[in-house]
């Protein structure tokens, strides 16, 4: 009992240190990416956009315990919001477009959260599937606004801060993306450690128990969904800004399912897991599909199976568990 005063700070600093190391790791990885793939920044930017989608999915699935195969609804809404702002309303400032994306994502998050939380487990999964198809259908029908199945084109973007053009080589888009990702990561680290983050983890494990403590799981999860929408919206907006088109695929079941696969691949319930999963999956896919455009799917399938067999908590999750065990032994 005499170690009580020591307990608190001793618990805190490693977490903070880990956060800093994590952020440094992202910066280093971003730099390395730039050096290793200087002429494939478009891919890296795309990875960042999807990473934001996967992060947003992690918030609801990994931290909130909501099974969803419809997360692209938030991502696509962000993308369309940013795209429509530019193509139809002449809002071409990338920062403003990002804000539009965030708003779009949050709005979609509110709708989805409201509906999805009406069931649990498998039916919940199906609700999310139904939702993503509805979003898709709406976007398909509203072709005057969205361009329908031909995609929304005609998006133009001003230079960032009036100086950096979004050009063919994609440097601006890449650094813009890295900047957004870092900002989101910092905010999310704060969020998941906060009382609210802890509450959500509790809800994930046993919502009834949380309700018995006087908290409303539903309200908390809807909040989480809206936050998740903001994150996904950033990703969608980044996608719209950097590629200047938005297609129906950004609102598709396939996109949602892929995001889920990436998340589980990296490891749910940890922000770095989401990042690692996205990067590994997309780089792997890019590599094998370029190496053999015809039969690469088998390789991806094999990767997924191997991960389940040898890293059942996901790549990052398993590595982290291994490392912490090593530490304990020492």
């Amino acid at each position, binding site marked *: 009992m005499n170690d009580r005063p020591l307990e608190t700070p001793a618990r805190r600093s490693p977490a903070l240190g880990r956060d800093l190391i994590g952020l440094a790791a992202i910066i280093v990885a971003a730099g390395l990416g730039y050096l290793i*793939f200087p002429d494939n920044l478009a891919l890296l930017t795309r990875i960042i956009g999807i990473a934001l989608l996967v992060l947003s999915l992690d918030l609801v699935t990994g931290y909130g315990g909501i099974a969803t195969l419809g997360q692209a609804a938030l991502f696509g809404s962000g993308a369309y919001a940013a795209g429509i702002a530019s193509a139809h309303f002449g809002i071409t400032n990338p920062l403003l477009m990002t804000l539009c994306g965030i708003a779009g994502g949050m709005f979609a998050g509110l709708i989805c959260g409201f509906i999805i939380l009406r069931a649990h487990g498998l039916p919940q999964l199906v609700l999310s599937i139904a939702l993503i198809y509805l979003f898709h259908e709406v976007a398909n029908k509203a072709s005057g606004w969205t361009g329908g199945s031909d995609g929304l084109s005609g998006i133009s973007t001003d230079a960032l801060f009036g100086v950096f053009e979004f050009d063919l080589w994609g440097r601006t888009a890449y650094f813009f993306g890295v900047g957004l990702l870092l900002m989101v990561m910092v905010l999310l680290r704060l969020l998941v450690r906060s009382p609210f983050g802890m509450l959500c983890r509790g809800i994930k494990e046993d919502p009834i128990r949380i309700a018995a403590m006087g908290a409303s799981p539903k309200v908390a999860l809807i909040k989480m969904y809206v936050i998740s929408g903001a994150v996904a919206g950033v990703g969608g907006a980044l996608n719209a800004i950097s590629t200047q088109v938005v297609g129906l695929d950004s609102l598709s079941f396939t996109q949602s399912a892929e995001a889920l696969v990436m998340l589980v691949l990296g490891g749910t319930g940890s922000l770095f897991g989401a990042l690692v999963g996205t990067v590994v999956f997309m780089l792997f896919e890019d590599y094998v599909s370029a190496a053999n455009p015809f039969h690469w799917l088998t390789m991806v399938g094999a990767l997924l199976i191997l991960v389940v067999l040898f890293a059942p908590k996901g790549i990052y999750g398993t590595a982290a568990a291994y490392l912490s065990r090593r530490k304990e032994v020492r």
Partner: protein
Amino acid sequence: DTIKVGVVGPFSGPFALQGKNFKAGIDAYIATHGDKIGDDTIEIVYRDLPAADPAQSKALAQELVVKEGVQYLAGFYFTPDAMAVTPILKQANTPLVIMNAATSAIVTKSPLVVRTSFTTWQTSTPIAKVAHDAGVEKVISVVSDYGPGVDAENAFKAGFEKEGGSVVEAIRMPLSTNDFSPIMQRIKDSGAQAVFAFLPSGPTTLGFVKAYNENGLKDAGIKFFAPGDLTQESDLPALGDAALGIQTTFHYAVSHDSPENKAFVEAASKAIGNPAELSFPSVGAYDGMHVIYKMIEATGGEQDAEKAVEAVKGLSWVSPRGPVTIDPESRHITQNIYLREVTKADDGTYYNKEIQTFEKQGDPGLAAAK
């Protein structure tokens, strides 16, 4: 020098067959014409884009240009994917040779786009005349609810009304429809004498055609007209007897009777492995390669997109599908459209038998859009 051509298409996933046809057409062209143009060697870099995904399409195109240093972009099965690439062409200084994507408007998005395939307007307009000539006055139109489907509906309607007929009802059904019985019921109830249908080539056409037979529409004498997507050669073995007698208009039939086509089919069959898989995207790709070769000749291997495109404007040649010209105005291909009927050959296989030719058809879609 090595000149790289970046080809983007669906090489895996649900449309892998079409991507495979791209590759077959390209391989056939290289096999018959060699991989050298002057001192330059041509090299194809493939990138897979399994389904319509414009963002990914643009990223791939950027990568091809920046990293692989391709001088030409080609392929593109889906309209949105092609659309997504048009904004970067100028800065990349690369022409874009479209080997399939069939929406009229693509060529207007950039002066560096050339198309060697077809448009849905182009293939769907003549069938209106066919229908009318067959004595049909009232038609119901049934299309898949997406860009090309809507194009087909409009093209047919425009054509058919010009002939003096009327489209009594226009139905758009979701792309993912599996069971077409209720649609057939609608067709029956509409009182139309014939149905005009557009579905993208692939699995769903099977269900549609079977439902047409099984629900007794064929027996009731309701005629069936469609553009050739519905009876692409690779789907025919599955459709079997159900498809017999269906009339479609299209720019290419594998059975087309000409020495050019014989040579092409032979080369392409070898490239694709299984001749039964050969279908229309292969000829778009084959002619696309022809255009690219001409461009390379004209520029002497230098990267100059404008000059390259300039060089092929008005270019005419005899393609496996028949005589074709690149329209200097629109940079879209002017070609013959054929009326074909699904027929059983002596060896028990099915093929599209050409029975009528509409010569030198341009793209009515562009005009309609104006």
